[in-house]
C-alpha cells in the first residue's frame, strides 16, 4: 500500500513544473483544465520550439511515449507526449490538439527526439495525423493502400458488432452464429463501395525502397560498386518472429535498413477499446508473450492509478516476485536465442529452456497457465500462492537458479568464439540511445543507469536493496553481460521479497467483474525485462476505456536499429537484432 503522502508529493512537483513551463512560454502553453488530466497543452505552431526547451532547459531528455487520442465529440485530435528525465523522477506530459478535419497536421518532433519516429508513424497509420517535416512518413503497421485509419472512433472493423462488450447477441438468446454471416463480404473484410478487385493495382512498395535510397551512405572509396537490397523476413529464422527488414548492402556492409512491421499487428488497441477494463487483462498477456506477468503488472498499475485504489500488501510482494521471476526467465531465453543467432544452435538455449520450464511450472501452479497467466487483478492478485508453489519458488531462488545462472556463465562468458563475435561490436552509445528513446538493458549497457524500478519506483520496489545493473562500453559483450547482472539483481530482490512478504489478504477490492473507473487519463509504466512498458489509458467513466494504448519497449527500441546497424556487417546484423530482444507480439501489438 503506498502511503498517501508519497502520492501527493510528485503531483506538487509536477504542478510547479507545469507552472514554470507556462511562465516560460505564456503565449503558446496552456494549462490542462480537464479533471483527472495532467500536463499542458501546447499550441501546435510552437510545438517544436517548446519541445526543444523541454529537452534542453528543463532536462527532460527521454521522450518515451507518443500517442494520439481521437476526441470525436469535441471534434479534436490530440497527440500526447510523455517525457522523462534519465536521472529519474516523474514525467512531463504535454499535448497538442488539432481540428479533426483532414488533413490533420501536427509538427513532427523527430528532429528533437529521434525516438518519436516510429511512434509518429504509428499515429499517422492508425489515426491519419500527418506529421509535417517527418522524414519518412509511411504507414507502419498496416500496408499502404489499406482503407481508412482504424483507430479513429468513427471507423468500424468488418466484424463490428457493437461499440462495447458484452455483446447483446450472446445472452439470453445466444444462438451460436459465425461473425462471417453478418458481414456482406462473408469474411473479416470490408471493401469500399463499387470496388472492383479485378482492376486493382497493388502497391509495390516503391516508398519503402525510396526511403532506403535516401538514407544510404555515399560510396567514398571511389570504386564502382553496386548496392543491393536484401529483404530479410518476414519468415526468417533469426528475426525473432515475423519481422521484415529491408537492408541495403554494399558488399557485406550495411548502408541502411528499414524494418517493416505489422505482420503480427493484432489490433490490440482497437480490441481494448471495445473490451471492459477487466477483459483487457488477458489480452495484455499476449503482448510480450514471454513476460505475461510483467504485462499484467503494467496494466494493473495504470488502471489502479486511474481508480486511485490501494493494492493489498501481500499482493504487492507477490507481484514483485512474479515480475522478477519473469525477468530471470526472459534473460535466460535471451542468452539462448542470442547464441542461437550466433550459430551455437541448441545447447545454451536448451539449457535456458530447462530453467524456464521450472519457472513456468510455478506460474502454472499459481495462476493456472504456463504462459498466459492473467494473474493480476485491480487491487491485488487472483489468488494466494499455494503452499507447494511457494516452497518451489524458494527452492528455485535460493538454490537452483543461482547455481544454473553460474553454470550458464561458466558455459559462455569466457568462450573465445562468443567473445570474438561480441566484443568490440558497437551497439549504441548512451547519448544516441537516449535520443532514440531506447530503454531497458540496451540503454543501461550504454552507460545510462536508467531503471524505472529505481528512477520512478512503482509497486514496492523502493523497499528492496538492489543495484541498477549498468555497463559502460555499449558493445555487444556488455549488452550480453548486463543480462546476467540483471538476473543476479533479480535474485537479490526475490530473496528480500520472499523474506519480507507479509501475511494477509491478496486483494484490497471485492471480486467484481465490472470495475468502476472514473473519467480521466493515466500513464502507468514499469521496467519490463525489455525496457519501459507503458499503458496509456483514457477513461470517460464508461465500463470500457475510451482510449487504450500500449507503449511497448520493443517497438520503440527498434527505432534505433538502423542507427545501430549502419556500417556494420550483415553477419552482425542478426546478433544486433538479438541484442534488442524484440518480441513481435509486443512490437506489432
Amino acid at each position, binding site marked *: 500500500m503506498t502511503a498517501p503522502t508519497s502520492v501527493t508529493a510528485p503531483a506538487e512537483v509536477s504542478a510547479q513544473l507545469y507552472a514554470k513551463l507556462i511562465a516560460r512560454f505564456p503565449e503558446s502553453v496552456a494549462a490542462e483544465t480537464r479533471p483527472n488530466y495532467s500536463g499542458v497543452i501546447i499550441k501546435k505552431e510552437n510545438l517544436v520550439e517548446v519541445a526543444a526547451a523541454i529537452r534542453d532547459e528543463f532536462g527532460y531528455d527521454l521522450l518515451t511515449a507518443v500517442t494520439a487520442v481521437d476526441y470525436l465529440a469535441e471534434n479534436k485530435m490530440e497527440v500526447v507526449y510523455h517525457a522523462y528525465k534519465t536521472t529519474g523522477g516523474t514525467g512531463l506530459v504535454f499535448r497538442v490538439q488539432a481540428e479533426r478535419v483532414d488533413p490533420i497536421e501536427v509538427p513532427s518532433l523527430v528532429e528533437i527526439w529521434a525516438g518519436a519516429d516510429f511512434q509518429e508513424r504509428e499515429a499517422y497509420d492508425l489515426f491519419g495525423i500527418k506529421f509535417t517535416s517527418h522524414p519518412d512518413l509511411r504507414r507502419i503497421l498496416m500496408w499502404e493502400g489499406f482503407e481508412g485509419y482504424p483507430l479513429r472512433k468513427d471507423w468500424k472493423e468488418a466484424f463490428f458488432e457493437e461499440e462495447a462488450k458484452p455483446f447483446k447477441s450472446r445472452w439470453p438468446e445466444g444462438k451460436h452464429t459465425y461473425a462471417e454471416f453478418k458481414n456482406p463480404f462473408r469474411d473479416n473484410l470490408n471493401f469500399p463501395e463499387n470496388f472492383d478487385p479485378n482492376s486493382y493495382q497493388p502497391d509495390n512498395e516503391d516508398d519503402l525502397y525510396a526511403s532506403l535510397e535516401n538514407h544510404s551512405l555515399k560510396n567514398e572509396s571511389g570504386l564502382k560498386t553496386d548496392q543491393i537490397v536484401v529483404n530479410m523476413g518476414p519468415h526468417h529464422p533469426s528475426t525473432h518472429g515475423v519481422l521484415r527488414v529491408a537492408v541495403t548492402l554494399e558488399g557485406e556492409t550495411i548502408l541502411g535498413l528499414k524494418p517493416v512491421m505489422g505482420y503480427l499487428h493484432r489490433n490490440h488497441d482497437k480490441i481494448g477499446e471495445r473490451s471492459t477494463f477487466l477483459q483487457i487483462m488477458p489480452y495484455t498477456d499476449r503482448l510480450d508473450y514471454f513476460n505475461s506477468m510483467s504485462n499484467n503488472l503494467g496494466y494493473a498499475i495504470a488502471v489502479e492509478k486511474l481508480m486511485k485504489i490501494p493494492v493489498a500488501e501481500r499482493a504487492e510482494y507477490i507481484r514483485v516476485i512474479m515480475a522478477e521471476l519473469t525477468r530471470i526467465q526472459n534473460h535466460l531465453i535471451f542468452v539462448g536465442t542470442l547464441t542461437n543467432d550466433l550459430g551455437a544452435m541448441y545447447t545454451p538455449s536448451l539449457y535456458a529452456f530447462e530453467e524456464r520450464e521450472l519457472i513456468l511450472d510455478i506460474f502454472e501452479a499459481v495462476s493456472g497457465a504456463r504462459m498466459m497467466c492473467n494473474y493480476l487483478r485491480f487491487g491485488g492478485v487472483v489468488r494466494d500462492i499455494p503452499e507447494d508453489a511457494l516452497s518451489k519458488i524458494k527452492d528455485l531462488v535460493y538454490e*537452483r537458479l543461482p547455481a544454473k545462472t553460474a553454470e550458464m556463465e561458466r558455459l559462455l562468458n569466457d568462450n573465445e568464439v562468443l567473445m570474438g563475435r561480441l566484443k568490440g561490436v558497437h551497439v549504441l552509445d548512451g547519448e544516441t540511445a537516449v535520443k532514440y528513446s531506447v530503454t531497458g538493458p540496451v540503454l543501461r549497457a550504454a552507460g545510462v543507469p536508467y531503471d524505472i524500478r529505481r528512477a520512478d519506483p512503482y509497486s514496492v520496489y523502493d523497499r528492496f536493496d538492489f543495484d541498477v545493473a549498468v555497463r559502460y562500453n555499449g558493445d555487444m559483450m556488455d549488452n550480453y553481460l548486463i543480462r546476467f547482472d540483471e538476473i543476479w539483481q533479480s535474485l537479490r530482490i526475490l530473496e528480500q521479497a520472499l523474506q519480507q512478504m507479509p501475511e494477509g489478504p491478496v486483494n484490497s477490492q471485492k471480486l467484481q467483474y465490472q470495475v468502476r473507473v472514473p473519467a480521466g487519463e493515466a500513464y502507468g509504466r514499469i521496467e519490463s525485462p525489455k525496457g519501459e512498458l507503458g499503458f496509456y489509458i483514457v477513461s470517460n467513466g464508461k465500463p470500457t476505456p475510451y482510449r487504450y494504448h500500449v507503449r511497448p519497449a520493443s517497438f520503440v527500441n527498434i527505432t534505433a536499429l538502423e542507427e545501430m546497424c549502419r556500417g556494420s556487417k550483415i553477419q552482425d546484423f542478426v546478433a544486433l537484432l538479438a541484442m534488442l530482444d524484440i518480441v513481435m507480439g509486443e512490437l506489432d501489438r
Partner: protein
Amino acid sequence: MFGKGILKSLQVTWKRFWDTYIDDLAWWLRGKKRYHSVEGITHRSSKNAKGIFTVQYPEERLILPEETRYLPFLVYNELADGKREILCTSCGICPKVCPPQCIWIVRSNDPQTGKPIPEPTEFYIDMDLCMNCGLCAEYCPFDAIKMDHDFELASYTRNIYELEKLLKPSSYYQSIRPQNFAREEAERKAKEEAKAAKAVKTAVAETPAAAP
C-alpha cells in the same frame, strides 16, 4: 591461453552429459523407478532435476497443478435417480465477462408461467475462440462453469462445443481440483445452513404476525 574458455564450456556440457547416467544409476541403485513413475516425474520437475529432463508424453505425463486451466466445462450433479442437475442457471455472467465473447447461452421461458427456466436451453462455447483466461470460472456465482485439465482435444474439424459436450459430472471436477471442490462445498454448506437458520428465524418472527 586461447581455447581455455572453450574447454571450460566443454566441461560444462560434459558434466551434464554424464549427469544423466549418474542420476539413472543412483535411482537404479536405490531400487526406484526414474521413469514412468510419479516420483520420478516429480523429481524431474524439481530443483534437483539433472540429467534427462524429458517427460515422455504420451507414455508419462506432467503432473498438472490444481489450478491448471485449459478449456471450460459445465458441472452437473449426479442425482440419486440417475438424473442430472445442471448447476448453471443461465444467469449470463460468463458471456458478459468473456473477453473474446465465445460463450453463447439461450435461456428459455416456461410456457406456462412465463418465468425464465434456470437451466440453459442451449449453451455453446466456441473452443477455437476461447483464450483460456478462466474469467468465466472465476466470476461464476454458482460454481457451474470450471476450467478443465484435459488438453488432448486436437481434432480434424473446428471445435464448437454444445451443452451435451460441455457437461461433466461434479465427481470429475472433484477429481481434478480436490482442494477447490472441498472449499466450495464447505462454503455452500455454510451458506445453506445460514439460510436455513435465517428461514427458521423469520418463520418464528412471522408466525405471530401471520396468525391473526
